[in-house]
């Protein structure tokens, strides 16, 4: 039925898997005393190849493989490129930001690669059980990465909290899948989309939607499922947070789009108001809580909750605009968030020696480079024009206005005014003359690879703000393919009969 070998449909995932395995093998065969930096280089190479193969997937005709379980389409490629790029940035940064004596560096890079497998698969799965497995693969590696500083209390706390709450959330998601199977007799996305309108047991369908949403909204850290975020970000090493706060979220948003727009498009009157309430709640909770934070990473954790809220506001839109706006926002958000956490990793250090907003005082004097980059990423998070953050917000809220939710747009933009307060607190702190013990601090060391990582983030953020056309087109064609299932669909020859 398919002319293309199925393996091409999961090529980036395969590349990441091989990278992870190679890293583990090389790690085991290297003498204990040798530097592990070469492993990081392998991981970076793997991420770059994965990025390249993802782009290459564009030339494949859109369609499914492996008996209708995975799909390649502009939508999956969009998110694959994003995730591979983020993994590349994370690895490059880790090569410089990880202290030489860090334990288990081999596992560190291997886990990042394996996590990337899960995240990529999550965006391309069109079979909910595969999506569940992908979710678990990505989650388990991030649980371990979050607890990488296992000798500190906060590190252990972060990992444990993330693991307990996270497994709960995935359980919810799995339960949702089970109920959907109960209602329709299938877990394949397109089959579900066809069968759900005909399902007789509405209660089951509704419960399934609700449970899946709980699971996914936990992963994107939207209120009221956000409680884990600040603790995990604070406890995890900053170079890990660069990954943690971006790629898994991008993947989870892709899953959210897939579930609500492809599986349950007929229930739009139901999930739309629900998501908008969650959006408003996330903005308010995130921004109000961030106002009071003194710890930079906690503050940005709450800010990421608010950003999840802005993104969900896109769902007020109509047709494909909401998907395009949300996809673009994911790109803009991940670029600037990866950038700012990279700056923080280099400023505060792997062990968070300088965790507080007040500790950033004088950064612009100690290291003009990092200081200006910090201000730039903050400007993008605030949503200053000519940065990616601005166009992200712009598309999201114009999608909301398009859908008639003017009040939502006003709430959202006033919230971004509120958010400016705490971003500016950090900016003002960085712009102040160093005083007291800050004068004695040495300038943070920026290695060449970390610089490349920072510049990638900055260039992406700037490009999204000045020449957004390319990414916007990609987001639009992604949105288009998500809404309209490919013509030659693979369906199992004999669908199980519809349940009564």
């Amino acid at each position, binding site marked *: 039925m398919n002319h293309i070998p199925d393996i091409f449909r999961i090529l980036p995932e395969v590349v990441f898997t091989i990278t992870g395995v190679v890293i583990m093998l090389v790690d085991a065969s290297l003498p204990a005393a040798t530097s592990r930096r070469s492993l990081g280089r392998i991981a970076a190479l793997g991420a770059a190849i994965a990025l390249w193969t993802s782009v290459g997937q564009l030339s494949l005709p859109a369609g499914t493989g492996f008996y209708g379980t995975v799909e390649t389409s502009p939508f999956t490629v969009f998110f694959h490129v994003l995730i591979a790029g983020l993994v590349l940035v994370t690895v490059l940064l880790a090569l410089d930001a990880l202290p030489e004596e860090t334990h288990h560096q081999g596992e560190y890079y291997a886990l990042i690669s394996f996590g990337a497998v899960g995240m990529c698969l999550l965006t391309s799965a069109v079979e909910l059980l595969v999506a569940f497995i992908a979710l678990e693969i990505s989650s388990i590696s991030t649980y371990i990465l979050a607890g990488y500083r296992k000798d500190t209390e906060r590190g252990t706390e972060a990992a444990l909290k993330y693991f307990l709450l996270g497994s709960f959330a995935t359980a919810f998601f799995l339960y949702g899948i089970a109920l959907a199977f109960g209602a329709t007799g299938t877990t394949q996305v397109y089959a579900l989309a066809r069968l759900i309108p005909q399902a007789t047991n509405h209660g089951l369908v509704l419960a399934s939607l609700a449970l899946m949403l709980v699971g996914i909204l936990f992963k994107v850290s939207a209120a009221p499922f956000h409680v884990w975020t600040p603790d995990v970000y604070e406890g995890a090493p900053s170079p890990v947070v660069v990954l943690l706060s971006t790629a898994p979220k991008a993947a989870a948003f892709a899953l959210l789009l897939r579930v609500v727009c492809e599986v349950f498009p007929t229930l739009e009157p139901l999930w739309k108001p629900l998501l908008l309430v969650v959006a408003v709640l996330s903005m308010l909770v995130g921004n109000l809580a961030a106002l009071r934070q003194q710890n930079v990473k906690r503050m940005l954790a709450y800010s990421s909750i608010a950003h999840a809220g802005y993104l969900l506001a896109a769902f007020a839109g109509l047709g494909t605009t909401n998907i395009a706006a949300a996809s673009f926002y994911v790109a803009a958000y991940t670029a600037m968030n990866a950038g700012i956490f990279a700056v923080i990793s280099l400023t505060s250090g792997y062990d968070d020696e300088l965790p507080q907003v007040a500790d950033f005082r004088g950064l612009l004097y100690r290291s003009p480079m990092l200081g200006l980059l910090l201000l730039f990423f903050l400007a993008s998070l605030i949503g200053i024009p000519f940065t990616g953050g601005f166009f992200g917000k*712009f598309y999201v809220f114009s999608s909301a206005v398009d859908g008639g939710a003017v009040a939502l747009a006003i709430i959202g933009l006033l919230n971004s005014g509120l958010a400016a307060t705490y971003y500016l607190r950090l900016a*003002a702190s960085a712009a102040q003359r160093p005083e007291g013990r800050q004068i004695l601090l040495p300038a943070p060391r920026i290695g060449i690879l970390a610089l490349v990582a920072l510049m990638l983030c900055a260039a992406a953020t700037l490009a999204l703000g000045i020449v957004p056309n390319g990414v916007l087109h990609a987001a639009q064609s992604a949105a288009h393919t998500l809404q309209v299932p490919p013509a030659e669909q693979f369906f199992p020859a004999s669908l199980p009969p519809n349940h009564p």
Partner: protein
Amino acid sequence: MNALNQSILTLLLVVPLIGALLIAVAPDRAKLPNWIALATTLASFLLALHLPAHFVAGQAGFQYEANIQWIETPAIFYHVGVDSLSLWLVVLVGLLAPVGVVASWNRITERPKIFYSLFLLQQTAMIGVFVSLDLMLYYGFWELSLVPMAILIAMYGRKNGPKAALKFFLYTFIPSAPLLVAILWMYACTRSFDYTTLQILFTHGAFPPSALFWLSLAFLFAFAVKVPLFPLHGWLSDTYAEAPAALAMVVAGKLGLYSMLRFHIGLFPEQARLLAPWLMVLAVIGVLYGACLALVQRDFWRLMAFAALSHLSLIVLGIYGLTLTGWTGAVYQILSHGVVDAALFLLLALLELRYGTTEIANYGGVAAKLPRLATFFVLAMLAMIGLPMLSGFVGEFLLFTSTFSEVSRTLAVLAALGVILGAAYMLWLAQRIFYGPQSPLAASLPAADLHPGEWGTLVPLVVLMLAMGLAPSLWLGTIASGLHLPTAKATTTSTVYALPATLNPASEEGLR
């Protein structure tokens, strides 16, 4: 020269950016950043002079236009152009930039690279606001103009820089949220961000009046904070007290007042008419309130802040009188205020540099030591309080004539009281600083009079004040030629500005 006409506005936007980049990459040696900044600002000023030199007065529509698609969906265009309203404002921004560099020359000694790069970025943003004809582009520059300003105030403030910067940023950033929503909503209904297209659609009744009212309110709110209009002036005095003189020169007034004329009255003439009485009352309160507070300030920057509030409110009064004379006077007064304020700020900055304090009480009898500085100050001060034959007089005269004869005598008389108070606080300021017995501070510190560079900056400014006072027709002609009163129910071609004959077919389609 015609080849330049197409790209002149783009050049004006790009030249400061190039200068900023050059400064960023140049080595941090002695005064190198200062010299690059000075060269860049002079070059962009010369380029700006191209605009009036080749401007065709009386020609309808915008000139030096460029209209290129920037982003496809939503349809955002790089659409720039000037008309008689923005023409001289662009030149003014060009003129103030080198003055700002001179005012910062000896004061900014630490991290000059960051200072001058951001200063030039600010320059681009301000010119961008004046020339943008696409609402999104305009909004972009409008927001962009906040950032360098806020960073510079935070980094180079006198005592409480970061706090003042935060206040400034929030005060001006939050009102732009409704502005953006309004722009987006207009786009959602019309599928266009283009100024002229929207103008046509509005006069053809594309929106119900109630919707237009809310839209106009959102626009007005953002502009009123930026001017600032009483009671939204909370940020002004802290910002003036902290900002380096080069930035204080440009922070208030121009952008907000221009936006009121162009985007509030220009897009929503009917709604502006409804709101005008209230705005004029607020403006008169601002004139008097600012003048009274200026009388009691102890710090000369704060005094200048409240003086600015008073003067800018007077311009608002002229704008919302909705008469041609008032608008001409308003534009002229913005220009005059820009030049005079620049001179005064430069002089005060030089005083502060020499004596290291901003407390008026510490000064006294300085004229004996710095006779030239004192002379220039008195000249600029006289121009500010509107002495005939100097630039301030013409604008004030037009504003008062329009208000008195065509709008409201009571308001004109009340506002005139503010002008009398204005003379009082400025004369008193000059007396306390420059005349009377020498204060211990003035006696103890040896201070040099004006350097050639400062001299060379002040002379053109003073000459300009005289020229603007003696031969206002040089400017008034072009300004008045392009302003048209809005007609109540417009036919196709008459709104504030003459419009192109053909409607954009795409936008018509968007309506349906």
